[in-house]
């Protein structure tokens, strides 16, 4: 089983949930405004696996969980994930209330944002976790989360929003790191294998690149043409 490099952002999740519990404040987690229908689907799925992990921690520590959602069709998915997590931790009574923890806000971007900001201001979460596809609302959520006093851990693969998470949150997951999160947190050998798979993918990218550069410099353009087609 390969030993994984430390990802401080992911290690911090448990502590953040613990801190929220001590302060008797809720934990807010969201999966972004991407859905499952387009190129951002992988980011949403990465966010859902984070929901599972955080829900389990909340069940274990007894923290209140709030999961704002943008797409109506993600609501049943998140509800079931949270229900399963609470059940597996033996909190069947709370599990039955999973439906109340997931809040459908609105599927239009900024009315989702306005309601989300309202939640952050009124509920004053102790921990605020965002993993998934975020757009212009990223900085608004992060800044208001900060003023609410939450420990914030955020990650996205939308390159233009990463800088805001890096600047405004306590921990940021950059691009690919959100895809490694599920495997990293599960500490399960099969899952770690998939992280190794990601590394192999990057190795392939590196080899293609170096080989291409050398061939190109040597005047062989066939390889480049092949990749372009």
């Amino acid at each position, binding site marked *: 089983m390969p030993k994984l490099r430390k990802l401080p952002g992911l290690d911090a999740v448990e502590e953040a949930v613990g801190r929220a519990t001590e302060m008797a404040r809720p934990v807010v987690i969201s999966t972004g405004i991407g859905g499952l*229908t387009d190129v951002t689907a*992988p980011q949403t799925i990465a966010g*859902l696996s984070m929901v599972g992990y955080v*829900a389990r921690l909340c069940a274990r520590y007894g923290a209140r969980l709030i999961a704002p959602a943008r797409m109506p069709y993600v609501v049943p998915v998140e509800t*079931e*994930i949270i229900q399963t997590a609470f059940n597996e931790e033996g909190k069947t009574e709370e599990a039955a209330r999973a439906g109340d923890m997931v809040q459908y806000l609105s*599927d239009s971007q900024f009315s989702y944002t*306005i309601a989300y900001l309202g939640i952050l201001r009124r509920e004053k979460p102790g921990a605020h976790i965002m993993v998934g596809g975020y757009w212009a609302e990223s900085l608004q959520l992060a800044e208001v989360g900060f003023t609410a006093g939450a420990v914030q851990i955020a990650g996205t693969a939308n390159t233009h929003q990463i800088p805001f998470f890096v600047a405004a949150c306590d921990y940021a997951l950059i691009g690919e790191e959100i*895809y490694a999160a599920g495997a990293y947190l599960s500490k399960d050998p099969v899952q770690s294998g998939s992280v190794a798979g990601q590394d192999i993918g990057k190795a392939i990218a590196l080899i293609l690149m170096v080989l291409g550069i050398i061939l190109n410099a040597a005047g062989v353009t066939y390889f480049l043409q092949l990749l372009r087609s």
Partner: protein
Amino acid sequence: MSFYKRKEIPILLTTFIALVMIFSTFFKVKAAQDFASTMQTWVLVIVNFTVILGIVMITRMHKGRIEKRKPGDNSWIFSVWLIVLVVFYFLLGVYGVESSRSATPTRNPAFAWVYTNINVALDSAMYSMLAFFISSAAFRAFKARTKEAAVLLLSAAVIMLYNAPAGSVIFGPLAEQFNALSEWILNVPNMAGFRGILIGAAVGAISLGIRVMTGRERGYLGAGE
């Protein structure tokens, strides 16, 4: 019964659709491409259906808030307002669709008025609120706590000056060198950094896709882990 409840059938469905969609992009086979485009419109129908269900979801949520209201807290009134308005506005839209016999509810002038004067106004107001948060972030978050943070801060400041209409006044005769530095930042490290992140993220997304298609990642079907 329990057989149908199992997740294998949905996973097979997901995998099959995904495979055909990928196949149709890289191999121009007409049948596959037709399947892919049909599937996309079907998915649109399904998604739009869930959007209508969103009204039920939000109504249920706010009904709960009205029922659980505490004495002294009047915010439940807003929940009543929301339920009334959402139902009324939706029905107005349906009326607009049916009366104009077109897919666009904005053919109804009342529906369109509310949309442009409330929805569009709030859209632009919320979006532009970023100006405030950019400023507060500049004040509190951009601090040279570490060497890395200092680099981040410097490069942000340089590009901001570069973009400001009066920016290069400050540099006087060195304005041209300053512009060259800014362009170098944008064309070399900025481009290379985001390119590296994009390639890495693509690898991550593809590997997640493979996990979904092999049924190892089933979070989207409500499985905890």
